[in-house]
Structure formats: structure tokens, C-alpha cells
């Protein structure tokens, strides 16, 4: 390994990234926009609200028109009431699942409509029926509060957005770029120099990891400044997990980069890998309760382990020892991908 050569290619790749203003800017703007969007959508109490259509009503905000709806139903939390002028309009929205439940205000009282195929509609129907039962007829229950600080959905989601950004950047930044270089002859020109494949691939990987960590740190603190995320664990631990994650993801990119010559085909393969990885690695939603085979598949993705570890540290204050399984999995995946990618690599078309 000649570090002078490695450094020369590392610098050249970084120049390319920093000077391509559009791509450079997008790497920061994209995660910021996504996080911002989710804070706006899920930051208020709108998350998990059930929508109840009410007719006849004068406006979409129906507070004044709800006098004839059972009071306890009206006061149930997480129900959002939407007004419709007439029954037809309400039914049309219900049919299209724009609302979960439709209730008629006034007489005859307690007349409602619900879609047989809607689980949300079923829940609201049960709430509606329950609101009609007198409290003294209910079996007594005891309510207890959970200990600790509540984790907001955006706090849970935030590392997922960053990890997703890292995944796309790692796979495309290494996989797609090297294929493009092979196709247009850059690799051929480099092969004619003393630069070894090992040095070239190491430089590519290190450059991408540096850029990933650089953008992730800036985006993290930028988003935190604006949206105030709650981080219980150590920032250093999170940094270490992200570093291992980016190492693992760029190694995966290396396999894709090893042989391909068609940008279109590589793009298809990248989509084939990145989309299932995004959906099965709990970026957007938890796989809790999903079939066992789906959860098994999800463990094959480095993103799953990176996210699990990051969330444990960020939300629960886990130590490195607590996430050693995930870090071990990332290290193992990195090693396997590196060996496969390096052994398959070809400079030529």
C-alpha cells in the first residue's frame, strides 16, 4: 500500500464532490427537507389521529356543528372531526378512505357509517359505541403512567433519515461512480499508472466515508439546532456507529462497482438493493409484529444494524457494549463485502 498514491486519489475524489455544487448542496438539503417535512407533519398532535366525518356541517372545522354528537365521543382524544355539507359527500370521502368514520349530526341520533374493510374505521366505531355507555356501567380500571421521558416520533425517525441518506450516498457514490469511470475510460487511464486496485478502492472508500461523515455531522447538528432532537446517549458512540455503518455501506457499494459497465443496469441493481433495504431496515416504521421471515431478511441489511444501534444510543442512552452485537454485524458485513468486492474488481470494460 502506497499512501502517497492513495492520498492523491482520495483528494481528487473529494475535489470532485466538493466542486460539484449541485450534488454537494443536495447532500445537505435533502435530509434537512425530509426531517423538516416530518417535523411539520408529525410534530403536532396530528400523528395517529382518526378522522371522523360529520354532516351536515357548514365548514370543514365543525366544532360549532357538533352539538348533536355524543359528548364523550366529541371529547375523545386523537379524533379529528371534518365537516361535510351532506351525506353524499361524506360517503364519497369514506369510500375513498379520506375519513375513517362518518356520523350524522342531529336526529335520528347516533346514525353512522363505517367501511367494513377499514381497520381504523372499526377502532373508531368501537370508540363511538363505548362513548354511548354510561361510565358507571364500565368495569373499573387503574391507569398508570410509564416512567422516563417520552420519545417523539421525529426523534425515532431522525436517525433513519440520516442513515437512508448515507445509504444512497454510499451506494451511488461508490457503486455508480466507479461504473461510470469504467465506462468512460478513467479507470483504464489509472490502470496504466502504478496505482494498484487495492489503493484505488481504498481511496474511493475512504473518500466516501469522509464525505458521508462530514455531511452527516453537519446535517445532524443543523437539524438539531432547528428541530431540537433529544439525544440521551453519547455523540461519540453515535459517530462510531455511523462510521462503521458507512464503512459497511460503501463496502456493499464496492461489490456493485466491481464489474459493471452499464450505468442503467447498475442503477437498476442499486434500486433493487436500496429500496428493500430502506423499507425493511425500519427507516420509516417499526417491523415489530411483522412476520419472522421479514425480520430475518431485514437482518441481512447493514442499515438495520446501524439504525438499531443508533436508536438504542440516541433514544435509550445505550453504551457501546450494549450495541456490540450490531457493531459486530456491521464489521462482519464490511469484511465480507470488502473481500468479495476487491476480488471481483476489474479495471477494464
Amino acid at each position, binding site marked *: 500500500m502506497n499512501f*502517497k*498514491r492513495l*492520498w*492523491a*486519489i482520495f*483528494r*481528487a*475524489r473529494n*475535489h*470532485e464532490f466538493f*466542486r*460539484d455544487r449541485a450534488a454537494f448542496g443536495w447532500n445537505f438539503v435533502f435530509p434537512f427537507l425530509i426531517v423538516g417535512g416530518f417535523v411539520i407533519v408529525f410534530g403536532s398532535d396530528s400523528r395517529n389521529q382518526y378522522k371522523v366525518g360529520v354532516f351536515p356541517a357548514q365548514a370543514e372545522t365543525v366544532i360549532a356543528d357538533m352539538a348533536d354528537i355524543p359528548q364523550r365521543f366529541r371529547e375523545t382524544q386523537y379524533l379529528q372531526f371534518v365537516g361535510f355539507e351532506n351525506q353524499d359527500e361524506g360517503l364519497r370521502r369514506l369510500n375513498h378512505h379520506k375519513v375513517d368514520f362518518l356520523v350524522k349530526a342531529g336526529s335520528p341520533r347516533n346514525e353512522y357509517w363505517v367501511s367494513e374493510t377499514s381497520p381504523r374505521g372499526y377502532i373508531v366505531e368501537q370508540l363511538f359505541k363505548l362513548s354511548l355507555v354510561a361510565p358507571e356501567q364500565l368495569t373499573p380500571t387503574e391507569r398508570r403512567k410509564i416512567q422516563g421521558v417520552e420519545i417523539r416520533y421525529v426523534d425515532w425517525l431522525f436517525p433513519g433519515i440520516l442513515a437512508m441518506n448515507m445509504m444512497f450516498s454510499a451506494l451511488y457514490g461508490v457503486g455508480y461512480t466507479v461504473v461510470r469511470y469504467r465506462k*468512460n*475510460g*478513467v479507470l*483504464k*487511464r*489509472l*490502470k*496504466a*499508472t*502504478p*496505482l494498484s486496485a487495492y489503493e484505488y478502492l481504498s481511496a474511493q472508500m475512504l473518500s466516501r466515508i469522509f464525505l458521508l461523515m462530514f455531511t452527516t455531522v453537519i446535517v445532524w447538528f443543523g437539524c438539531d439546532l432547528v428541530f431540537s432532537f433529544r439525544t440521551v446517549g453519547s455523540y461519540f458512540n453515535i459517530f462510531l456507529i455511523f462510521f462503521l455503518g458507512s464503512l459497511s455501506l460503501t463496502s456493499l457499494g464496492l461489490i456493485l462497482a466491481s464489474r459493471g459497465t452499464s450505468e442503467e443496469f447498475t442503477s437498476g441493481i442499486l434500486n433493487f438493493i436500496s429500496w428493500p433495504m430502506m423499507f425493511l431496515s425500519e427507516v420509516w416504521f417499526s417491523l415489530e409484529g411483522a412476520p419472522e421471515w421479514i425480520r430475518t431478511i431485514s437482518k441481512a441489511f447493514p442499515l438495520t444494524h446501524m439504525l438499531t444501534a443508533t436508536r438504542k444510543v440516541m433514544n435509550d442512552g445505550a453504551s457501546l457494549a450494549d450495541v456490540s452485537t450490531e457493531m459486530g454485524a456491521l464489521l462482519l458485513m464490511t469484511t465480507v463485502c470488502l473481500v468479495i468486492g476487491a476480488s471481483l474488481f476489474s*479495471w*477494464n470494460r
Partner: protein
Amino acid sequence: MTQLLEVIDLVKTYKTVEAVKGVSFSVAEGSCFGLLGPNGAGKTTTIEVIENVISPTSGTILYKGKPRDASFSEEVGIQFQETTLLAYMSVRETLKTFKNLYEESADLDSLIERCHLEDFQHQYNDRISGGQKQRFLLALALVNQPALLFLDEPSTGLDPQARQNLWQIVQQIKAEGKTIILTTHYMEEAEYLCDEIAIMDDGRLIAQGTPEELIRKHGGEKSISLPGTVLEGKLESLPFQARHQQDRIELLTDDVNSCIQTLIHKEIDLGDLNVNVQNLESVFLNLTGRQLRE
């Protein structure tokens, strides 16, 4: 003269296509060796196998009498026919990057001055003209002060002035005693720069020698041609073998001066006289039966 490079029975096959079919030649140290051939003759494949960019199917390549090792890439400079370089890098930065890939390298400022890159050294390497790019690629090939320089069609697409400019630089490199392997489409370029020439066709080497040797052996006969009407009724009295070519008659001769003297003596009108000389173009046509660019 010491042989710097020896190519022995080189074969390169792509699936069902045999691009190079057992080529052998050697290149003397300090010489400029030209590889000529029509498109598809296999010369770029041959060159790229020697450069170690692609692997041979069979055959031996010796550099300084030994199989090529890791030091080979340190000692050769390559100008490819077509090259895309790293994006968002200036000419100077690209040269510096490549300089750092070698153990020993040329002084950057001297190299820039030698290849006349001063005016555009800070421009991005994809925003320079064709002539500038060729000089830049040559500088890139010289960045490690190579003992052996490969130039694959270095002047293709250049205007006559830019080509002359490039030839001067190559002549200077030659004068320093460096060995050059050149492929080209331009006969005058090969004649001007090369000490030895090999002609390839259909994956095989069909002739090799100095330009003078090739012309002497394969250049065909010297001749003088005149319109058929001028020689009407006089051909029988002339001591030359004649060949009819459409509306002209070609008189074959080894001594052009004496032939012209005879024609003057016979009071033949020489107003539309053509002297067909032997040159590399005629060598090429005689050997391959094709134009160089076909």
C-alpha cells in the same frame, strides 16, 4: 542497438474474434517505432496489451530483456487514443494528481512549459480545446519521465499547425534518447518521426523496416504518367514499359531524369506530366490494398 522491448508471438482473442494473430517485433532503445495499419487492423489492441492495460491470450512481452514487472508501469508513459479524466479538476491539478502516482516524476512547471500548457493550466480539464487536450495528454504521459512512451494516434483531429507543434515536442523527446512507440493514420507523421515502422493488417504484421527500406521493398515502381492523347503514335518509339490507366499512360522507369530527357528529345508535350514517386502511402496501398483510414 539494445532492444528495449520485445514482443514474441502475441495473440489476443475476444470470444470468437482474434484481434491479434501472432505478432512479433522488437523496439530498439532510443528509437521511434511506428505501428501503422487501417482501422481494425489490431494495432490499438497490440499496443494496449504491451502497455499492460489488457492481458494477452498468449505470447511473450519482454521489457529490458525480462518479463514486465511492477516497475514497468513506473517507467512507461501512455497517451491513449481517447481518455476521460477525473472531473472537476484543473489541468495543473490533474497533472499533480498523476505525478503523485509515481515514485519519480518530472518538475510540474517545466512539464507545463514544455507542452505549452501555461495559458490554460488552471482550467478544468474538460473545458479545453482539442489541440490543448492533446498537448495536455502528452504532458500526462510524460509526468513520470518515462523511458518508454506510447503515443496512440496523438495528432488525430488536430489542425496542421497544432500537429506541427506536437511533432516538435515529440522530436525533442526523441532527442533526449527516449524510446517511443507511435500509432498513426498520417503517413507524413510516420515518415517524419519514426525510425522504424511495422505495418499491421487483419491482426498480423505484414511488413517491418525503416521507412527507406519499406519504400524500397514495397513502394512499387517509379513512373511518369501523361495523357494518352499526348503519346498517341509515339509509344512504340519509347524505350519504356507502358501501362494504360483509363485516359492516361504510365511509363515505368527507374531513372526519372533520363526518362524526362528522352520525352523532351522526342518533343512530347509535358504540360500534364505526373511523376509517381514511391512513399509510405504507396507502400501501404501496395501491401494492404486499402487506404489507411478504411
